[in-house]
């Protein structure tokens, strides 16, 4: 670690500000949490633990809850009842509603325009801010690192710790910097960059680290693209990913509900800029990637790092695990993954369910049809995204193309609400995990960008979206 007064990394600056009690050989640091996000799946047992001990939520003002994982994405039926997948799912939602009411925690529930996938909702409301420590019982909490926050997922026991004390016991993580320089080619999205980064680090390669993403290609990303990138840090094994705040961060947050206003905002914004890693600060590990060399990416296996440029052939397995992955996916080594007919396309999730993602998918889909036999589901990441998309008429583009336009939620990303890919079916998904059975028992998942998902929906096979977005160039090449 750098000396106390020497140059510091973004991570160190945020970390040090939140140390309530320093770590020693015997005990971890007590780390203060500025923002605790809660959802229905990983919280019930934590609230029960509080109840069993007769404790209250210590800082309900720093705790925000939403409903997203177990919630149906089909609207209520004629009887006004929401079509929950099981009574247990409904009971889980009711449990969070009860717990929030009892403990005075704000819940973006069914009746709220704020409701959304937890990692989509919090940035929209300006709850997530640079320099904060943000936690949630959810591994994709890393998303919030896009703002220069230290944001990571915790288990349910730790959810209980934060509810009860607003603190966590933590050891300081190691520092990794991933620098992506160069200009992304036209038609190459943040998701393609993300998949390329994970393929480079390797699944598990980031274990024990917090990643700082730096370089001109990262600076050039809009906030939503940075969220896509940080979101998937866990897929490289890192608990958190961070991007230093800059003018884009400030402009994104200006005027949002939970952010300071007026002069106070300008003052805070200056503090945010000072969080950037100092020149000369050192990292435990450095990785460099040429952004200009990245092309649209898709996965071929059952881990998110098993990604290659679209058009590549499935590789010859290097070991039993890769052979099993290939067999599960039904791909043959030496054959391009663009040869296999797809059954389902899912656009959504906290990785790619924001407005810019829906725009990218709609741009490709406009005036085209989803291939017959392919089911395409578009699920906005939040009520706000849904409203904005509808204001722009994107829902018409999707519906006219033959896609389903759904209510916000996690949906087919985790397939616990009744939206799932049937056994053996092949899906292109804009979400973050292609694990066996992630999108339903026996479901086969190819991870890709929203534009790729849309292009593939039209073609019925995995397809490079640039043939739709850059027809002129394509003609030249032909």
């Amino acid at each position, binding site marked *: 670690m750098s000396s106390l007064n020497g140059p510091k990394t973004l991570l160190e600056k945020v970390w040090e500000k939140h140390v309530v009690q320093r770590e020693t050989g015997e005990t971890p640091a007590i780390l203060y949490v500025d923002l605790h996000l809660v959802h229905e799946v990983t919280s019930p047992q934590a609230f029960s633990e509080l109840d069993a001990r007769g404790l209250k939520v210590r800082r309900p003002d720093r705790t925000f809850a939403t409903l997203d994982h*177990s919630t149906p994405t089909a609207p209520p039926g004629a009887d006004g009842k929401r079509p929950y997948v099981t009574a247990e799912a409904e009971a889980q939602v009711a449990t969070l509603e009860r717990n929030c009411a009892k403990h005075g925690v704000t819940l973006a529930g069914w009746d709220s325009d704020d409701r959304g996938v937890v990692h989509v909702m919090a940035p929209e409301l300006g709850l997530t801010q640079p320099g904060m420590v943000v936690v949630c*019982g959810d591994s994709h909490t890393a998303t919030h690192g896009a703002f220069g926050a230290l944001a990571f997922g915790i288990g349910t026991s730790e959810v209980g710790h934060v509810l009860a004390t607003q603190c966590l016991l933590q050891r300081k993580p190691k520092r990794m910097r991933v620098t992506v320089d160069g200009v992304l080619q036209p038609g190459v999205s943040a998701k393609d960059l993300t998949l390329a980064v994970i393929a480079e680090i390797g699944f598990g390669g980031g274990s024990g680290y917090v990643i700082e993403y730096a370089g001109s290609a990262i600076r050039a990303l809009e906030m939503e693209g940075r969220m896509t990138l940080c979101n998937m840090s866990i897929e490289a094994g890192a608990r958190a990913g961070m991007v230093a705040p800059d003018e884009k961060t400030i402009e994104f947050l200006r005027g949002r509900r939970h952010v300071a206003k007026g002069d106070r905002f300008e003052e805070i914004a200056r503090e945010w800029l000072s969080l950037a890693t100092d020149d000369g600060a050192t990292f435990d590990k450095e990785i460099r990637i040429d952004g200009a060399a990245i092309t649209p990416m898709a996965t071929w296996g059952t881990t998110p790092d098993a990604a290659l440029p679209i058009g590549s052939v499935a590789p010859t397995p290097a070991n039993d695990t890769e052979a099993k992955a290939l067999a599960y996916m039904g791909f043959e080594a030496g054959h391009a993954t663009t040869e296999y007919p797809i059954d389902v396309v899912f656009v959504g999730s906290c990785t790619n369910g924001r407005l810019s993602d829906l725009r990218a998918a709609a741009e490709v889909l406009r005036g085209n049809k989803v291939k017959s036999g392919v089911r395409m589901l578009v699920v906005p990441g939040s009520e706000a995204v849904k409203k904005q998309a509808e204001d722009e008429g994107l829902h018409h583009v999707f519906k006219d193309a033959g896609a389903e336009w759904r209510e916000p939620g996690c949906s087919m990303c985790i397939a616990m609400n009744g939206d799932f890919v049937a056994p053996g079916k092949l899906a292109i998904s804009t979400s973050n995990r292609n694990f066996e059975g992630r999108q339903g028992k026996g479901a086969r998942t190819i991870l890709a960008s929203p534009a790729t998902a849309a292009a593939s929906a039209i073609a019925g096979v995995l397809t490079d979206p640039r043939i739709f977005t850059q027809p002129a160039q394509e003609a030249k090449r032909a």
Partner: protein
Amino acid sequence: MPEPFKQLVSRTFVIKQEAVDTDQIIPARFLTTTTREGLGKAAFYDWRYDADGNPKANEPLNTIDASEHRVLVAGDNFGCGSSREHAPWALTDYGFRAVISTTIADIFTSNALKNGLLPITVDKDTHARLMEDPGGRVSIDLDKSELTIGNNPPIKFHIEPFARRCLIEGVDPMGWLVDRVPTIETYERERAV
């Protein structure tokens, strides 16, 4: 609180696969529960049961005596993926008390330690030896942080010292934190949060 953990002597159960993620350990559709109990039946569900929900006869996880196989040995990068604490809840309810691999995911490690499931990482050679001898006998001494395979000399392993103390002495981390609320209040006053 899990029972204090000092020593364990058991046979191993070996899963050869690498990157056994939390969706394998417990599929998401079992996460709608609001309690911690009874998740052992959901452990590795999609490996253990066929499409109709019948246990597969040729699946060792269905046929072994779980009380005899309390140490799970798995391929590299075990427990990657989700933060669901349901994963260690399912594994401990099934009967496991320790997991051994070359690398174990950060959040899984943290969750396991809070539930009396010991996550032990070992070097490649030790791992290879364990992988090649499914059902072999191992003993784990948490006091000494030692793993002994068969009659071989013991091997040291590392467990985060505070988590280790919690397991051995039955210290409750939540209670420990709650006891420090006055310190936390001082911090809040100083930072005006």
